[in-house]
């Protein structure tokens, strides 16, 4: 789960991690009041959406007067922001963060992520702050320092020294400042079940103080049950409405750009099915994992969500019954066609436990737009043909 910059900075405040002062607002009027309260003389007006690249997309701007804050708040609030991390449709800006301008001497990069290789949290830092870190990693990988921290021993002095020297910080007070900063960040990461924390840029002021100018934070969904304060920060408005709706029924759904709706059991098989459709010359419209406990209601819901997408020209149901029995799925499909108006061809491939019984059920139901695929390849081929109108 991701949270907004202003929420991440609230968490920073709890850990005494320095940030510029700021106030979250949801209207132009409140933006003006916030600017007056902060005092200026420079403010930054920042769009709050769950995506990076906001500055380049025109969602972060500098104001030199209260009037300018008002003007920018008017411009940014309600705009649809498209960045390299959003979809092409972009994201609607519903919240702003009005922040004090900072006195910037140097821009750095600092993050904590899980390193799957060492299976430890990894502190990543670079002198190339303010740039896309993927670009830095590709062009000048030597400018990124990585420090794995074994949770069994926690953040030690040597980790801090590796960081300070790695960033070329020679002033002793500045060294102390950056080490303290990183230690607090690591503690925050561990105590809140974070998945990643990224500060880009981390700025050094003329006084040698380090400030988190931006903040991105993501958390382990599996740990939200024991992190109620973090869970309460969830902003459903930032999530895809169909994905949220699907999740209520235990379905895992991700919309894509193609024409063939997919309904599959298991995440791996679901991805594999998308790949098969692609291989056969079609395009998948979505990823949908119905999970291990699919029944008539969830199958019907799945059809409903898939069919909301007007691009869908055919649906491919690909189930490999293990513990899930195919006959139950077949009955679910029949029920679903009664509950939802399924007006496109549905190609069904059911294999595994009780597959022959399932085929019999579908055959006997005699529904014209339900086509039975013999195996996965055949099913995908039939789906691709159906989507093309054959």
């Amino acid at each position, binding site marked *: 789960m991701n949270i907004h910059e202003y929420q991440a900075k609230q968490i920073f405040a709890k850990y005494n991690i320095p940030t510029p002062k700021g106030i979250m607002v949801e209207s132009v009027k409140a933006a003006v009041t916030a600017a007056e309260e902060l005092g200026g003389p420079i403010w930054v007006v920042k769009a709050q959406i769950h995506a990076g690249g906001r500055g380049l997309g025109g969602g972060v701007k500098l104001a030199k007067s209260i009037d300018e804050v008002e003007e920018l708040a008017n411009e940014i609030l309600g705009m649809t922001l498209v960045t390299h991390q959003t979809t092409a449709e972009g994201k609607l800006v519903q919240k702003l963060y009005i922040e004090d301008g900072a006195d910037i001497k140097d821009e750095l990069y600092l993050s904590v992520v899980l390193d799957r290789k060492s299976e430890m949290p990894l502190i990543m830092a670079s002198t190339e702050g303010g740039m896309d870190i993927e670009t830095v990693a590709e062009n000048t990988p030597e400018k990124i320092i990585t420090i794995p921290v074994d949770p069994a021993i926690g953040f030690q002095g040597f980790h801090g020294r590796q960081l300070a020297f790695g960033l070329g910080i020679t002033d002793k007070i500045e060294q102390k400042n950056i080490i303290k900063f990183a230690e607090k960040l690591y503690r925050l990461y561990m105590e809140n*079940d974070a998945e990643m924390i990224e500060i880009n840029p981390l700025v050094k002021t003329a006084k040698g103080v380090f400030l988190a100018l931006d903040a991105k934070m993501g958390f382990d969904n599996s740990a939200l049950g024991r992190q109620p304060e973090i869970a309460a920060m969830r902003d459903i408005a930032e999530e895809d409405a169909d994905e949220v709706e699907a999740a209520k029924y235990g379905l895992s759904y991700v919309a894509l750009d193609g024409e063939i709706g997919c309904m599959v059991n298991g995440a791996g098989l679901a991805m594999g099915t998308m*790949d098969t459709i692609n291989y056969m010359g079609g395009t998948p419209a979505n990823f949908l994992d119905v999970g291990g406990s699919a029944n008539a209601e969830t199958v019907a819901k799945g059809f409903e969500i898939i069919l909301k997408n007007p691009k869908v020209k055919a649906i491919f149901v690909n189930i490999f019954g293990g513990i899930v029995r195919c006959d139950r799925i077949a009955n679910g499909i029949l029920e679903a066609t009664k509950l939802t108006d399924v007006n496109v061809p549905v190609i069904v491939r059911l294999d595994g436990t009780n597959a022959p019984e399932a085929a019999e059920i579908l055959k006997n139901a005699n529904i014209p737009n339900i086509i039975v695929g013999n195996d996965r390849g055949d099913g995908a081929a039939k789906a691709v043909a159906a989507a093309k109108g054959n």
Partner: protein
Amino acid sequence: MSSLVNKDTKVIVQGFTGKEGTFHAEQCLAYGTKIVGGVTPNKGGQEHLGKPVFNTVLEAVETTGATVSMIFVPPAFVGDAVMEAAEAGIKLAVIITEGAPVKDMQAAKAHATKHGMMTIGPNCPGIITAEECKIGIMPGSIFKKGNVGLISKSGTLTYEGANQVCNEGFGITTAVGIGGDPIIGLSYLQILPMFEADPETEAIVMIGEIGGDLEIHAEKLIIEQFTKPVVAFIAGQTAPKGKTMGHAGAIVSGSAGTAKEKMEALEAAGVKVVVSPAEIGKAIAEVLGK
């Protein structure tokens, strides 16, 4: 590959009396797995599915001599359960539970390693040595005995792969579902050498997916140590960037972890990479020369 689990392997179930634990333990028993008991705190002394229930793993191990534990406890207790098994002398923990916090698994795996316990999972279908021992939730009937080893991150693709191999007239030695979480136990790097060393395994099916770089690390290993043919499929060629596709670990971030990258690395190592999982069976028939 009966070295890891076989018909004589003694297995206990942690979370034995719960709904999932009960259902799957029953299926495993029916398959022939030697389940010798289970653990549910405060139910020690009772009998369940005709097997003794213990309060602690230590008690269960001391009484039954079990070396493997199949773990079904709820997500919040997985870390605890794995560490308990490790300290009680269990040699292999197969963790089926989905949704364990990553931080807990990090600590539990480090602790398991310290005590010399191997782990499989979490969030996986488990391990099966065909017609001998099933420790997990896979449908036993599709795993016919044969000469192909299978290792997969995905549950349903494990079934799909095994089914195709069997439909081509071959069979499975052992199949391992390693799970798709960010932190998992035994992986390609540990299991591929076991298949190479196993006299019964003549070819291997390797099924991966986007995210992480486990498959890339397998490349070097296959070049340096492998004599047996490998067929591979990587799920998620059509997955969009930055989206979690069901498994928390399957996030393509930047250029790292894409299906294309992994497929190219494996191909360079001489692996027969198929672009659709529907081709796995045929590819195996091809590499085994039939």
